[in-house]
């Protein structure tokens, strides 16, 4: 196995979603998790489909970032953080587009 795309490995060090993403033909959903304006780097972002089924999960990056490569349609992003903190948002994704989301805890 070589490269990051043919394994199931998460991006090393979580996702730094600060840099601009070129979606190409992907349907990207990405964003940051913030508390009082500061990045939350300990926590998880989960992607659920429109039926509420779990699809994927990533640890938050040092900048509180997360990124998913979805498909066109409506998705939910659920954030889990220590202390039982949860937040959930619905997003729409489409090919060639980066859907941005900022989650405030």
């Amino acid at each position, binding site marked *: 196995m070589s490269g990051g795309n043919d394994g*199931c490995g998460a991006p*090393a060090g*979580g996702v730094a979603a600060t840099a601009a993403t070129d979606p190409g033909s992907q349907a990207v959903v990405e964003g940051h998790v913030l508390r009082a304006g500061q990045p939350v780097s300990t926590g998880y972002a989960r992607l659920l489909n429109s039926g509420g*089924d779990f699809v994927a*999960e990533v*640890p938050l990056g040092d900048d509180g970032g997360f990124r998913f*490569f979805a498909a066109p349609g409506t998705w939910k992003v659920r954030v889990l953080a220590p202390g039982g903190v949860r937040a959930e948002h619905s997003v729409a994704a489409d090919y060639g587009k980066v859907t941005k989301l900022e989650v405030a805890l």
Partner: protein
Amino acid sequence: MSRSDVLVNADWVEAHASDDGVVLVEVDEDTTAYDKGHIRSAIKIDWKKDLQDPVRRDFVDKVGFEALLSERGISNGDTVVLYGGNNNWFAAYAYWYFRLYGHDSVKLLDGGRKKWELESRELVGDVPRRPATSYTAAEPDASIRAFRDEVVSAIGKRNLIDVRSPDEFVGRLLAPAHLPQEQAQRPGHIPTAANVPWAKSANEDGTFKSDDDLRALYVGEAGLDLGKDTIAYCRIGERSAHTWFALHELLGLPNVKNYDGSWTEYGSLVGVPIELGEAK
């Protein structure tokens, strides 16, 4: 085998991680997670660098597994406790290796790294040094690993469980949604497979569901025929190792195999049947 033989909780780890004869090992999807902080006394195994053959598409062979465990200071008699992120996805994959190579006492930390982090338990940067050992592995246990020809001949005859997300199963996605979707192989699933996404066997905190809930999921909801052998697959065999753990180690079902070639192999084979859309 009971649940307590194969799972430990965080309190147990806090009490016993430094005991002689106990080795805590982090195996994470994000292979740098350990370096940012890990449970005290834990060592690291990198699922890609340490557990995969560097040349062939296969995992590390018996000699390589022996060399790895010897170098990390793991003895045959040690109790190995594995943990990792994403509901222990890759820890379960490593667990399957340890069983495949005949390690006697191996367990998962229920909930893995996520539950530990969400409970704000201690993570440290110190990397423990363990003296090298002379580990001896058994020959690989073929009863828990399926290969492609066996999978093709199992269509319509054995239980096939596709544990990828529903979107991958129907052919809408080709990879888990936290990875780019560029893959050469065809989308879809193996005909007659039932789709039971791997994460359905876990609670949101990453712990495994109860035996009753697991039975309801696989036997009740998915219609698993307990009179037949079972093969689980995903995309490269890690998520299906997690389901293999639920079926074989927690529910104690005999004759459950993990097909680690999984969709990256099957979806690239010439001449095999593929089904698109919902299960028929």
